[in-house]
């Protein structure tokens, strides 16, 4: 599970928030990209600030450099601005990384559905998320909350309908054309 670190990850200046505005802006962009690609690869959806300082994402032991707590917050705030994250609660201890917006997920799910002929058919959420059919799909193992958000987006668009099964307490979804 070796993640391909970008080259700038191994350069010390990357771990100091630059004072010069233009440089800083670019640096934060690169950080955001890194955070998103890392969380995506490792399928992480939640970052706990207290643990973050030690995680290999923010702490490069090879070059003995890490982002300070303050700097991490700066990076995360930037992420939030971009819409790729949001604080879980007011205490700002945990942050939810949204490396793909629900809408994007919705489109992917719907695309899969059309490609595999599930239009006008019902699937369980379980099947979609963890079933055999979708093992190679991106949304395989997707966080349930995000998945449901995606489905609700589809519902809004009128391309699907979510309903609860009474007996099994499972959710199912029917795709429309």
């Amino acid at each position, binding site marked *: 599970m070796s993640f391909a670190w970008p080259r700038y990850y*191994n350069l010390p200046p990357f771990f100091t928030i630059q004072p010069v505005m233009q*440089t800083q802006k670019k640096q934060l962009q690169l950080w955001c990209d890194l955070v998103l690609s890392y969380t995506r690869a490792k399928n992480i959806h939640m970052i706990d600030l207290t643990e973050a300082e030690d995680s290999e994402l923010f702490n490069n032991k090879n070059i003995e450099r890490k982002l300070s707590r303050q700097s991490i917050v700066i990076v995360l705030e930037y992420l939030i601005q971009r819409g790729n994250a949001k604080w879980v609660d007011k205490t700002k201890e945990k942050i939810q990384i949204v490396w793909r917006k629900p809408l994007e997920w919705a489109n992917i799910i719907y695309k899969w559905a059309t490609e595999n002929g599930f239009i006008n058919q019902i699937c369980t959420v379980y099947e979609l998320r963890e079933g055999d059919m979708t093992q190679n799909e991106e949304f395989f193992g997707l966080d349930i909350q995000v998945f449901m958000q995606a489905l609700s987006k589809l519902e809004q668009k009128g391309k699907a309908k979510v309903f609860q099964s009474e007996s099994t307490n499972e959710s199912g979804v029917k795709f429309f054309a």
Partner: protein
Amino acid sequence: MSFFEKLHFQTNKNLPQLFSTELQLHHCSDASIGYTGKQKYEKKATLILTSHRLLWTTLKKKKVSGEYIPLSKVNEIQDSKSRKSKIKKIVFTTFIKNTKAKKKKSSKKTDDLVVTLSFKSPQNEFLEKFHKALKEKVWASKPKKETMGLLGTTTRSHNTNKPSLTIGISGLLAREEKKKIQTTNTLSQAFTDLDSLMQSAKEMVQISEKFALRYKRAKEEEEKEKLWKEQQKKNLGMGIGSGIGSGIGSGIGSGIGSGIGSGIGSGIGSGIGIGSGIGIGSGIGIGSGMGIGIPRSSGISSGRNTRMSSGFGSGIGVGMPTTNQRTQIPTSSKNVPNQTPSTSDLLEFDEILFSVGIKNPVTKKGVSSNQYYKKLAKEIATFVAKFIEKMGGMITVIDTYCLFNRARGTELISPEDLVKACKQFQKLGLGLKLHKFDSGVLVIRNDFEDDSTIAKKILKLIQTHGPITPFETAMMLKIPINLAKEYLLTSEREKYLCRDDSLDLVFYENFFLIENYDYEKLENFLKNPKLSIEKSNIQMSSPKSNKKQVTKKTNNSKKKISKKNDDWELL
């Protein structure tokens, strides 16, 4: 007009002749002086207040004339009614008898002359200084010179009158007395003979300038023919050493000479200096020698002094040549080291040169303050221009202050004066400007240089040497560390660099803002850690040996630590 004494002027100048200890205190051009009485007298003149007198001069058809009142004859200044108001009139009583005045019943009982000074512009300062001058009574104190002179004369007469008592204890005592008196005499003469020394200093400067010319020519020739020419140059004499420093001298000389600084030694010094190396002149100088210390550009390495200080004065201190190293007959190339001695000699000579250079320092005497700052600015500009290129086009005001005052010797200027004069640079179009960095550091730099040129220079430096700290920059460019930091910050501001602040401050090339950055190069730099550049440079040894050590130690061929000039030439 007849009440006042006539003022004497300096020959061929329209400046009044002042007494030796008289100092000009204030100067006012739009004034008029007068007194009332039977014969009213009023004259428009330029008024000058000195420590001894009150002078006024008028200019008629390019010819000046003037008169004065000695302050000893001034009785009392009448208090103006309200102190806060702008003073345009000063009235004072004198001890001069106004023989032509009418005796008024209402006025004072005496017939002393009452003088009125009136000004077009308010002159509160003048009044204050007038009060002060009257209070201090500088004219009343006996100047030291006269007492010394008196001492001299008395002792001389004393000597001639005395019968020679050479026998017995009294004889011994007499001899001791004689010796004491002689030494005091010579010392006092030495102190008062500063003028003649300054004259010698001028000659020194002329000689050194001659050498400077020769040196320049020599440098050109050197590049053409190596060995033979070097030999010649050495003999031309790098020997303006700290004359008395290595000598055994009594008096001022010995102390100052061996140190860093310009020593004007006039002790009874027998300077016996022996240069290190073969075939060097040894002169025995007796008499007034001139010590010129070797300045340090950035305040490091006192070690160099030991070599140069073996020059000294014979008469007026142009020392005999000292060569710091071998002076063998050039037979084979083996004898000649890689970095030729003459180059470093010349470099050092260069440094000495710019500490000797100011013949007629501008002083505040007899010059209005505006003019003074203008002249001072010009003087500073010419002085700084000599070496600003070597310093990389920029020199801190602090360094200028030190070097400039050292070159002046006497008549030192204050820091505020220096800054004020520097502010005039651009106005006077002297090719320099005073620049203040964000952190507050003041520098003098060339007109055409600005932030971007410096930034680019630093960028090139980083591209060749890899990531760099302010300390390393200072070492490599031979500039003070605060200036080095400013350079780096400037370059960062111009977005050429980015920083790593985690442990020490290190600057890298700004890979954030470069498309398709070549990471490989940087990674290489990081893999090969910098090998004790700092350590070798900290040592207090000669720059030559510094460079040798450094070149030995660094393994990475990419990091060639080149000569100080070369670094800037690269850029």
